[in-house]
């Protein structure tokens, strides 16, 4: 009997769809077995030959996306017993079953000039039948262009994920990050699969620490001579706060009605809430001689997590959104920073420096302080950010030589490098 074990089942009620594959949804908490998916190359259903990358944009995207999620193992194409093009949309289930496939995705295309009819289907090998996915009951007509074809493939993968896990996938979402450009630093927008990138700021000053909530990007820029807060929407950088000293790390609340940020105008770095349009102070949240910075909202907007070194070293703390009730969360190590609260509310991501001065990504559970380590012995791993549904994490890692973006399952079990840029990426924030 084939078993499916998917890691999120550790933390939530069973997440299998109402009409699951016939195999059991049993969970083995220690051992994660990834789902065996076969994704043969897209095949021609009768039109012109593919000379413009249709196959790569469709089945290539699907295969890569499934790997990024960390939930699937792709069955080796060399092991296929049948000719996927020949059997077309009538799978020989036994032959797929015999090579260990649990699911099968088939993509057919018919190219006609500058248009292509794309037929994307999911089959349950165990169940011996096609699975109907919303939006993909019938083939779609698209332009022969990588962008719309990839977008279509991403939508398909999101539905595959929704079928198996009850949660749609994150493809099509955006990650804002920082890259070195010339003598300065620029904001860039990176697609969740890491393959599409757009530069957002065009000047040559230092632009850093972006956040991206409710459709608005806030960031810190030195373009006017010191660290000031700006917002990026409507295609323009809008100045928000330029008090004396630091104006850093602005993050919009989930409700969109307040910005939390670090200002040092009153003598040393403290956390404040500000009006998100004009930067006027709403409330000062901290009042201590120490460095208080790195503030981030809880998903319901009732609390703020932040970094404070009031006990002698930078640690993760939480407090009420109006200040007060400060509670320290991390007690191991002497350098815990960059908190981000999970959209599911239960855990906070952060970066920790260990005794060898190596940086790694961790989570701490808000209720009881239990720590989980996501990276180890893999270069320096820093500045993590949650996916919109809180089941994946993006962070930077230097394990491949330069600082690149990696996406990981929330417990660090499966990690996938999504960028390969010269000069490296920094401080990613996954749009929520």
């Amino acid at each position: 009997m084939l078993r499916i074990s998917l890691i999120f089942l550790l933390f939530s009620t069973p997440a299998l769809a109402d009409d699951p594959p016939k195999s059991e949804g049993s969970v083995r908490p220690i051992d994660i077995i990834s789902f065996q998916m076969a994704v043969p190359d897209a095949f021609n259903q009768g039109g012109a030959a593919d000379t413009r990358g249709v196959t790569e944009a469709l089945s290539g995207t699907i295969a890569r996306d499934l790997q990024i999620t960390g939930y699937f193992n792709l069955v080796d194409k060399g092991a296929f017993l049948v000719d996927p093009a020949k059997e077309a949309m009538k799978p020989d289930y036994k032959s797929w079953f015999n090579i260990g496939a649990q699911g099968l995705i088939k993509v057919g295309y018919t190219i006609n000039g500058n248009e292509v009819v794309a037929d994307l289907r999911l089959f349950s090998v165990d169940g011996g039948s096609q699975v109907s996915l919303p939006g993909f009951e019938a083939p779609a007509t698209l332009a022969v262009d990588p962008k719309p074809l990839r977008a279509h493939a991403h939508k398909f993968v999101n539905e595959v994920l929704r079928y198996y896990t009850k949660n749609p996938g994150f493809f099509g979402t955006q990650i804002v990050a920082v890259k070195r450009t010339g003598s300065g630093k620029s904001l860039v927008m990176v697609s969740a699969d890491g393959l599409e990138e757009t530069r957002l700021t065009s000047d040559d000053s230092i632009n850093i620490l972006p956040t991206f909530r409710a459709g608005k990007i806030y960031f810190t820029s030195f373009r006017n001579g010191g660290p000031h807060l700006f917002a990026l929407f409507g295609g323009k950088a809008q100045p928000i706060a330029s008090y004396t000293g630091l104006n850093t790390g602005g993050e919009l609340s989930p409700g969109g009605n307040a910005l939390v940020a670090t200002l040092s105008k009153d003598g040393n770095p403290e956390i404040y809430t500000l009006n998100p349009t004009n930067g006027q102070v709403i409330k000062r949240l901290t009042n201590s001689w120490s460095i208080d910075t790195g503030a981030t909202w809880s998903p319901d907007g009732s609390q703020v997590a932040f970094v404070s070194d009031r006990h002698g070293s930078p640690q993760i703390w939480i407090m009420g959104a109006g200040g007060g009730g400060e509670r320290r969360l991390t007690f191991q190590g002497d350098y815990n920073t960059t908190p981000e609260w999970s959209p599911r509310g239960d855990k906070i991501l952060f970066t920790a420096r260990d005794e060898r001065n190596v940086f790694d990504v961790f989570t701490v559970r808000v209720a009881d302080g239990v720590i989980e380590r996501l990276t180890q012995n893999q270069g320096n791993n820093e500045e993590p950010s949650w996916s919109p549904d809180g089941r994946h994490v993006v962070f930077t890692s230097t394990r491949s030589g330069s600082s690149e973006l990696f996406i990981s399952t929330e417990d660090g079990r499966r990690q996938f490098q999504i960028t390969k840029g010269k000069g490296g990426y920094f401080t990613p924030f996954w749009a929520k």
Partner: protein
Amino acid sequence: MRYLLSLAVLSLVCACGGPPTKTLTEAQTALNGAILAKKCAPEDYAAAERMYAKAQTLNAQGKYDEAQQSAEAAKKLAEKARQKAEDRRAECFSPKDENLGKGTDVEQFIDRSDPGLGEGISVEGLKTIYYDFNASDLTDESKQTMQRNASWLNTNPATRVILEGHCDSRGSAEYNLALGEKRGFNARNYLKQLGVDVSRLEVVSYGEERPAEGGEDEGSYARNRRVEFSVRGASPGL
């Protein structure tokens, strides 16, 4: 010979390399004492004068070790000139020149301005200070540097100066902005304790964003943990 002279000079100079005020004063005194040589050994006197002027320039440029050497050399040249002039006094001195060297108010020749810290020094007169890992308090070496910086600042009370706080590239970018600012604040507070008017000093933190050098080794990290001085309007220090 010159090499041994340099070694001898260096062994007399302390390791911290401050302005050679004492030696400059001695050289000036020696020149004053050789005033007879102006008439009786003019070329030797001129050579001593040139060497003294060189010592003053080097001092003004902050090249204290070289200034020390030149001042020593000027002192020796002035001595040589004086001696030569004495040897020739009989043949060159005439009664109506008696006033030279006698009754001259030597005091008026002594340069009382602070050597090397006068006008013409740009921001080169303000030296960068460095910090230990994770630390924002001043080291002993930094304090010495800041004392010289304080002199410059007091001599240039009108110049508005920026203290830039910097960190090495490790760790949280945002926390490093706060740490860089703390380094700048501590530096400014120390200057205040030394009596500098800090109202014209602004602190700007660059965190880890503007390293002095790009290496990822302990040496580069150490050279990036710093506060450096710049003048608004000039390009920000790299």
